[in-house]
């Protein structure tokens, strides 16, 4: 298990290669990558604030729960904070399991919990000003399926 919180960009290709490479027990590797996208048009940048200290603890707790709940060989969470621009990669998760069902479900679980239980807050900067991204009802209800 590896959990990383950093301001610097990460190299998605290298991280995936490193995570998936050399595995002989896991038949299934799933990754999710979150990208800064232009939801309503006019997005220029995204600022991500986080609660240093609590973030790392929360991510480790979420990853530990995923590993105890599914049969995983390994899992990885990388999440950035600070200033990002359109198209930048915000975060990624990766899971390795013998069976694809475990790898998929664990990755979805990690994402659902990251969305509303890890202390990050996004602020969007557009041509017209800036504002905090509102949390979605959907994200909260997504947790109820686990």
């Amino acid at each position, binding site marked *: 298990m590896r959990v990383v919180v950093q301001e610097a960009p990460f190299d998605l290709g290298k991280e995936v290669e490193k995570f998936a490479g050399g595995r002989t027990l896991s038949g299934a590797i799933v990754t999710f990558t*979150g990208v800064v996208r232009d939801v309503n048009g006019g997005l220029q940048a995204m600022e991500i*604030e986080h*609660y240093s*200290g*609590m973030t790392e*603890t929360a991510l480790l707790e979420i990853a530990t729960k995923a590993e105890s709940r599914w049969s995983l060989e390994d899992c990885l969470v990388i*999440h950035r904070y600070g200033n990002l621009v359109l198209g930048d990669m*915000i*975060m990624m998760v990766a899971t390795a399991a013998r069976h694809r069902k475990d790898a998929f479900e664990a990755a979805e679980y990690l*994402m659902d919990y*990251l*969305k*509303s*239980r*890890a*202390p*990050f*807050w*996004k*602020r969007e900067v557009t041509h017209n000003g800036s504002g*905090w*991204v*509102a*949390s979605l009802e959907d994200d*909260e209800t997504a947790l109820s399926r686990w």
Partner: protein
Amino acid sequence: MDVLYFAWVRERVGLPREVIDANLNTVMDLVELLREREERYVLAFADLSVLRVALDQKLSDFNAPLTDVREVAFFPPMTGG
């Protein structure tokens, strides 16, 4: 006790962190104390249903006791991922 604010709570309160020394039972008592201090706290804590609280970096709730708590953080619902 350190009190931390994040995102728009931080913006409304006007600072990211402060030290509060008072004899308080619960998180709610701390909220009341702050609300009585200044208008900006009244604004920040206007609707508790859109606020979250963490005690010593663990998610908690407004009825939780503050016994032995060293760090309280207030913030809006998280939007990670």
